[in-house]
């Protein structure tokens, strides 16, 4: 796995095209652990990461306990090479999906839901999603076009002119994927959505509290 730079912004020496940027803000009761678990499973299912715990790209986790409640900062930085594993996997561009959580005032509370008591959390969560397509990503390992004696002269022309239509197509794919992630989060919090099909909501109860209709008594604790 490539080493990230320790000094300087993580994107300062990278070529990228922004694809989507959005945030979701929610302040009410929700089950934080179930939310974390649901997103973990979503990223594994969408092949952003393998189900190997030590490879999970959680670059930063801060927990600050205050009198007003717990404050948490969590940074997830996912990378995916489109078509990875298939013949002709590209070595020039990849998808980057950065997810930043900021949770403030998190407190354990008990709520009544459908006549039963459930332990959950009350918090203010800001969920920030940034999707980008990175070109010449192998430059971080020193093996990119910008490190080659001949190819470095063609790098700009290639991604700005020759390969631009393909990159725009991939940008739209990544845009759609980022908005599917937004749909998952909004459905979990019970916010308004517009997609014709619900993204994964059939599996988890809303806000992670309560039982799934038809599966009473087997709700995750």
């Amino acid at each position: 796995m490539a080493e990230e730079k320790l000094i300087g912004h993580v994107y300062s020496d990278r070529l990228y095209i922004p694809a989507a940027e959005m945030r979701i803000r929610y302040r009410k009761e929700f089950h934080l652990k179930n939310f974390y678990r649901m997103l973990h499973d979503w990223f594994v299912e969408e092949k952003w990461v393998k189900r190997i715990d030590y490879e999970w790209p959680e670059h930063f986790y801060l927990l600050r306990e205050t009198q007003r409640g717990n404050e948490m900062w969590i940074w997830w930085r996912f990378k995916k090479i489109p078509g990875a594993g298939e013949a002709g996997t590209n070595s020039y561009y990849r998808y980057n999906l950065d997810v930043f959580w900021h949770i403030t005032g998190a407190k354990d509370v008990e709520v009544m839901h459908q006549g039963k008591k459930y332990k959950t959390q009350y918090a203010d969560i800001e969920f920030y999603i940034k999707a980008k397509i990175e070109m010449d990503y192998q430059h971080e390992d020193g093996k990119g076009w910008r490190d080659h004696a001949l190819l470095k002269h063609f790098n700009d022309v290639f991604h700005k002119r020759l390969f631009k239509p393909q990159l725009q197509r991939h940008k739209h794919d990544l845009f759609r994927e980022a908005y599917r992630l937004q749909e998952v989060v909004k459905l979990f919090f019970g916010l308004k959505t517009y997609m014709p099909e619900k993204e994964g909501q059939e599996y988890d109860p809303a806000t992670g509290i309560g039982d799934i209709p038809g599966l009473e008594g087997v709700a995750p604790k």
Partner: protein
Amino acid sequence: MPEMISTRKMIIQKAGVIDLDGLYRTMQRWFYDNQYVFEEPTSRMRPGSDAGPEYEWKWKNWRKVSDYVKYHVSVFFHVWDAKDFEVIKEGKKVILTKCRLKIEIDGNVELDWTKKFTETKFSQFLFKFYNKYILKEERILSLWWDELYYRLYKLQTIAKEYLDMESKGNAYYDIW
């Protein structure tokens, strides 16, 4: 450099019982049908007051008209004191929302979105010359600004009809 010419801001306010879910989907669908790229950069929920929670949604939509012109439309929804309840309408269960709603619709015409005329002072001069003497500003206003404004007026009419407002209806329905 790219220039943004804004249309007039349109505001709709209503307090009462509305089908918020349907309004949200209908307005979103309008952008899809009119070939806009739809983005929702902010979606926010707050506990609000005892009367009900508060919601905010910001939409940013854009559409390429030509190599020189792009339309941008931003919509801002703000809902206060939202309370959902179920009713039976025509034999079906429908979830309606009692709330106070404000919708702001804003449009912008962006010229030179490809930034071809931004690099040098000479190209910036050409940009101003082109807009002022060749397009003569009339074309900008009478063609692109006009089209965006009346199309947004149709979007506002759709919202007013959905909210069953007294002033629903569009006298300019046949323009653009």
